[in-house]
């Protein structure tokens, strides 16, 4: 004994057994689902309903008054699985491309849940997969890659595990798939849940074997690329954040045992910029620019990954660009303003003395910096701040010919400022020790000036005039002057190292100031490097 129901199909009444009715209903649902992207789907469904009515009546006769399950099975077989013929016609037109785009848009309304039905751990990947309509295997693969290469996949997973609710009710499942909650969709979802449970569902087998899956996959590849860029931009954002924290606080926040420390933005500002307000504004400018960039990257990345398309994120991204630019403009303004503090050069020349010897030896003096309070960001080249003193290193050397038989030594101190006078005053503030003792020139490799003078391109240049035929010995290197065409006949010895071509070149040259000059620099660690 079986229960029958009465149905009206396009104006015709049929008596149909309950299981047969369910089968038919499920077929119509699959059809509606398959046609959701097709233009005029309503009409197609209607036409097929007419055909169903026709086929139903053809299955009935005077003896047989009720539609049975076998009849519906036969009708379904005649009509074919919707996935089969609907995918078939899609290839004809390009229309479905725009339609599938609309379908993608509908994902905006989706909600993230944890999908416990096929969960491996806590259903996070499954939930994300449902959200993007991507195969869960791909999401799991991305999580594994992120976990192994970047190391933050696990914390993200745990975080999502804690945050995301489980899709436990039918309504949750609908929200998860971005479907509107109506009586019809709820019914549909419940039905599809029963279908999922009964493995007999044909549609599943069809989905796997037919190319229809391809178009869905294609859409998700785009999403994978998006997610990849999203992750990359969040990653870059986090790197910038790290640098930003280092820049704001200096390496004081990291308990390093070393003497060397990375200077914070304020520390650098204090020794570079003129006034306190400049330091403040530079700080504001750089912070605004960096924070905007960080937030932009983080929001943009999240938006790419989770496909947020709401106005709020769009507006905040645009405003972050503007805020960021104003930060850049402010920083640039402060930079230009400080640049004006460097326009004029002041120079101070001191004569150190004259030496009468066969060879002038230069000995470098440097002390190891082992004060734990100093701040610097490099062992040579850049500055060290020690109390109220800025210590700078690297002494420039310039060699010219001596007009007599003596070595003449001069010390030149230079600095820049907004006026010539100020620059000279700053040059005068430079302390650099140099002295001659027993025909040896003792030179300190570093020099210092008051912190209040700021970094104004302070330099120390030692000028040594070398007599003809003699040389200077520094850091085990010999410095000897080249001789100009004027002197070529007198000083053949000096040309001993040169070949014929170079001799000819020398003869062609007129007396040239630069040519009779040699330069070098004595580094903080006592190493001498010549600049030829």
């Amino acid at each position, binding site marked *: 004994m079986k229960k029958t129901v009465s149905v009206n*199909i*396009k*104006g*015709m009444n049929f008596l149909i057994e309950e299981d047969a009715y369910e089968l038919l209903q499920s077929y119509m649902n699959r*059809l509606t689902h398959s*046609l959701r992207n*097709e*233009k*005029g789907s309503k*009409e*197609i469904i209607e*036409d*097929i309903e*007419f*055909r169903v*009515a*026709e086929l139903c*009546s053809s299955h009935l006769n005077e003896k047989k008054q009720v539609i049975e399950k076998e009849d519906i099975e036969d009708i379904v077989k*005649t*009509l*074919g*699985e*919707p996935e*089969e*013929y*609907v995918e*078939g*016609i899609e*290839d*004809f*037109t390009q229309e479905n491309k725009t339609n599938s785009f609309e379908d993608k848009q509908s994902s905006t309304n989706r909600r993230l849940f944890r999908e416990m039905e096929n969960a491996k751990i806590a259903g996070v990947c499954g939930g994300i997969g449902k959200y993007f309509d991507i195969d869960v295997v791909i999401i799991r693969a991305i999580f594994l890659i992120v976990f192994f290469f970047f190391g933050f996949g696990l914390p993200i997973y745990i975080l999502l595990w804690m945050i995301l609710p489980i899709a436990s009710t039918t309504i949750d499942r609908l929200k998860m798939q971005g479907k509107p909650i109506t009586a019809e969709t709820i019914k549909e979802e419940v039905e599809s849940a029963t279908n999922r449970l009964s493995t007999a569902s044909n549609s599943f087998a069809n989905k796997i074997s037919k*190319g229809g899956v391809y178009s869905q996959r294609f859409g998700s590849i785009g999403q994978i690329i998006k997610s990849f860029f999203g992750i990359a931009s969040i990653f870059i954002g986090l790197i910038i954040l790290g640098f930003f924290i280092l820049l704001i606080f200096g390496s004081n926040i990291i308990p390093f045992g070393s003497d060397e420390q990375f200077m914070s933005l304020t520390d650098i500002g204090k020794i570079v910029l003129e006034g306190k307000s400049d330091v403040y504004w530079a700080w504001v400018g750089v912070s605004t620019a960096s924070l905007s960039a960080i937030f932009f990257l983080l929001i943009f990345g999240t938006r790419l990954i989770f496909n947020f398309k709401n106005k709020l994120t769009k507006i905040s991204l645009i405003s972050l660009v503007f805020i960021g630019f104003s930060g850049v403009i402010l920083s640039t303004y402060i930079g230009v303003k400080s640049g004006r503090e460097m326009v004029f050069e002041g120079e101070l020349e001191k004569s150190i003395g004259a030496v009468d010897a066969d060879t002038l030896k230069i000995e470098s003096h440097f002390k190891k910096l082992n004060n734990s309070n100093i701040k610097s960001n490099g062992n040579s080249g850049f500055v060290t701040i020690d109390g109220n003193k800025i210590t700078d290193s690297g002494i420039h050397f310039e060699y010219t010919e001596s007009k007599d038989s003596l070595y003449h030594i001069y010390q030149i101190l230079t600095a820049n400022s907004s006026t010539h006078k100020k620059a000279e005053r700053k040059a005068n503030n430079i302390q650099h020790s140099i002295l001659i003792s027993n025909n040896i020139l003792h030179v300190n490799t570093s020099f210092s000036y008051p912190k209040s003078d700021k970094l104004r391109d302070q330099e120390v240049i030692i000028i040594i005039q070398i007599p003809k035929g003699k040389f200077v010995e520094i850091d085990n290197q010999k410095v000897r002057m080249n001789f100009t065409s004027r002197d070529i006949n007198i000083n053949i010895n000096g040309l001993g190292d040169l070949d014929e071509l170079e001799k000819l070149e020398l003869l062609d040259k007129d007396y040239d100031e630069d040519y009779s000059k040699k330069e070098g620099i004595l580094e903080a660690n006592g190493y001498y490097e010549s600049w030829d």
Partner: protein
Amino acid sequence: MSLENTQAQMRKGILEFCILSILEKKEAYPSEILDRLKDAKLIVVEGTLYPLLTRLKNMELLAYRWEESSSGPPRKYYSLTKMGKTFLEELQVTWDELSKAVTKIIKN
């Protein structure tokens, strides 16, 4: 690409042409068209026809009218529009050329 797939592609292309050809002679309702197509073994599942008919109608190549039926639900009788006739003529030319070309290539 499997053999099945290639065959499906070939059939699909020809199907529209055949539907139009069937309707050229006289108007018909879906079941009649289905009978003809199934007879010729052009389609396997009936569902294939309906989206095609709707599409051809939306392209204004086909028009239809309703007719009551004594034995079942009302029927949609499809017929070619003027544009449909022109369209079919074009297809006919293409088909002739193609079939000649294909025969020639297969035979040699």
